[in-house]
């Protein structure tokens, strides 16, 4: 599913240029056997065929079957339509498939769909926040229930089940505000202002840049969904540390402080 797929047989698109792909699909159904259509569509839908597999060839000798004929043998033809019982039972078609066996991997009509490129991310190993003079290592952390935190108070952790920084969706990192003896890497996180830059770097020096958009402070008893949830369909970054007052009985701060940023 890459750009090259879009070049397949564009001449058969008879709809206007503004909406060729779906029209092409509809027309394609009149000229390709259902099986061939489904093979092609299945490849796209399953998202598993490599580009080369999916674009091998568009057959010009596909069996011609009218949509009406296809529908006549549809396994759904006998379905009750207005039955108030919602559990519709679809009978399985009996007997062998009457259609001729097609060559596999032909005719990928769905590849006429517009491809959408999503931004790539990086696995971060360093974080820089110039506004508060942070320049620190980033390690890989896990979230299985309660999130892990870095053992080293000078390091920041990236939760590997969140997005790679730069990808669509939230990449979440955490760092300590302090140790038992003094400030830690995110001691000044609450001094960041809107627009302040955060730069993440990969091992190969590739970087992704973000700018602060918002902050929030939440009781640890109830972190809201936005801290780990999907926000806007954009590259997002969330930096978490502690905040609020310290609970000496538990040995922890009572709040989490979160900085929200977006890719720039």
């Amino acid at each position, binding site marked *: 599913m890459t750009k090259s797929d879009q070049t397949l047989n564009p001449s058969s698109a008879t709809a206007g240029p503004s909406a060729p792909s779906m029209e092409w699909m509809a027309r394609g159904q009149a000229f390709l056997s259902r099986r061939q259509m489904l093979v092609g569509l299945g490849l796209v839908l*399953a998202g598993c065929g490599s580009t080369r597999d999916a674009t091998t060839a568009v057959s010009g000798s596909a069996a011609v079957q009218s949509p009406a004929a296809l529908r006549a043998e549809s396994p759904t033809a006998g379905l009750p339509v207005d039955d108030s019982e919602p559990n519709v039972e679809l009978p399985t078609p009996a007997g062998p498939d009457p259609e001729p066996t097609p060559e596999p991997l032909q005719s990928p009509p769905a590849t006429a769909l517009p491809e959408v490129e999503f931004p790539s991310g990086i696995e971060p190993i360093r974080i820089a926040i110039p506004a508060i003079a942070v320049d620190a290592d980033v390690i890989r952390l896990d979230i299985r229930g309660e999130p892990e935190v870095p053992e080293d108070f000078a390091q920041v952790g990236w939760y590997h089940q969140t997005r790679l920084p730069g990808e669509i969706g939230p990449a979440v990192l955490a760092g300590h505000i302090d140790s038992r003896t003094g400030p830690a890497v995110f001691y000044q996180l609450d001094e960041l202002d809107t627009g302040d830059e955060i730069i993440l770097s990969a091992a190969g020096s590739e970087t992704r840049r973000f700018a602060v958009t918002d902050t929030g402070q939440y009781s640890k008893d109830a972190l809201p969904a936005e801290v780990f949830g999907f926000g806007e369909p954009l590259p997002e970054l969330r930096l978490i540390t502690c905040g609020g007052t*310290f609970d000496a009985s538990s040995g922890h701060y009572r709040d989490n402080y979160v900085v929200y940023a977006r890719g720039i």
Partner: protein
Amino acid sequence: MKKSLLAAVAAVCLLGTVLALPAHAQSGGAVYGGVLSELNNSGASGSAKITVADDGLTMTIEVNARNLNLNGPHAMHLHGKVEGNAVIASTCPTDADDGDGDGVLTVLEGAPKYGGVQVSLTTNGDTSADSALAVDRYLAGQTINYNRAGIPIPEVLRSNEGKLHVVVHGIDENGNGTLDLDQTERSSLTDDLPREATAPALCGTLTVQATGPVQTGGGGTASDSPFAMISVGAGFVALSGAAFALRRRDDQV
């Protein structure tokens, strides 16, 4: 559905998987969740949750949806954009992705955003993409409460469960609330089904969920900490290599 054709698709998938030899760390025990938002003016709402088993190989999936405008079968899948052995983070489509402008976002028109079917949320039997259109093995009705354990996680998805989308298909286009099998417009996937059967009604992007707070403080700079008696300056020196401009925090020191 034609089993032979599905087998062909499955064979290609399997081949791709074997050739790609993905080597992902497992993510046993992780929980992913998301809110489902309506598409095609379905009026529905919902939520979904994936709990990965401790061995990282199977998962429990819960989908709760209500106010669906189609009182009929709702095919449900985990969709995702898989390229090689990577899962590309993407997003749910919107009604604006209706490529041909006919007013209905078909299942295929959504595919450039949410990707292909990776797991089929069937009630029983196979849960692979092969069962994407097995309409007789999906829940039906206007309210869906799906909860199935032991669903195999395809290898390429392991530790990438948080880049998937939950899509509930099945809409009512003409206001009669039922599936119109003779609808003129057919599914963009198969002529066997009407467009109503496969057009998406709900979509939600999953993210990993924390079930506890992030404990990122030792209290060394907090005035109400028993550890605060140790001077802040000493701690600062201890953090050699990290550049801190030490400033006092009104709320903590």
